[in-house]
């Protein structure tokens, strides 16, 4: 039973365009959501997060949107750059020092 779902295993976007990565969750107790980027042979790198009390958080080219009623969040990257090509993981956690629950990841390819 997957609590965090990333239904698109891969996504290709042209350089300069917007990349939109989607994530759905089922557990209504989740209150903090994070996005990670992972290159091959490296550990995941934290990108951006959002608390359940917000619906948007922005950091440079990266924006995360949260729709609590739909249990859906998305990561927007604009403009997309070739260096953004990586696997992106969505993760969620409940209150306190609880571990993250990860989605299966979406492989983003940004084409020059």
């Amino acid at each position, binding site marked *: 039973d997957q609590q965090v779902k990333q239904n698109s295993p891969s996504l290709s976007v042209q350089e300069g365009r917007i990349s939109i990565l989607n994530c759905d969750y089922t557990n209504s107790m989740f209150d903090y959501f*994070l996005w*990670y980027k992972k290159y091959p*042979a*490296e*550990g*995941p*790198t*934290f990108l951006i997060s959002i608390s359940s009390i917000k619906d948007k958080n922005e950091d440079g080219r990266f924006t995360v949107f949260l729709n609590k009623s739909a249990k859906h969040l998305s990561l927007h990257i604009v403009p997309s750059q070739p260096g953004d090509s990586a696997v992106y993981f969505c993760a969620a956690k409940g209150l306190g*020092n609880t*571990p993250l629950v990860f989605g299966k990841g979406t492989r983003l390819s940004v084409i020059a």
Partner: protein
Amino acid sequence: SAVISQKPSRDICQRGTSLTIQCQVDSQVTMMFWYRQQPGQSLTLIATANQGSEATYESGFVIDKFPISRPNLTFSTLTVSNMSPEDSSIYLCSVSYLETQYFGPGTRLLVL
């Protein structure tokens, strides 16, 4: 952010042997976690390493197979015991620090 190092970065091991992976953090942290990422899969939590108490294992993982030590607030080890080819994976150490989880670079294990 917390800076995490892992040793070894990679290893090739024979079936039936054991490997101990070390994780060092540059800050004192309460919660340390061990994850596994099998080829093409998401990150799966093995256990939470608590300082001063026994590790808490997730369903499907047992202490005899994956013993964990947590002697202080900056260090932990994970041992993969009696290895089989199915244990070939990337093993990742992670820490919870200021509402965010950070990951080490991973240990890439191949069991022949």
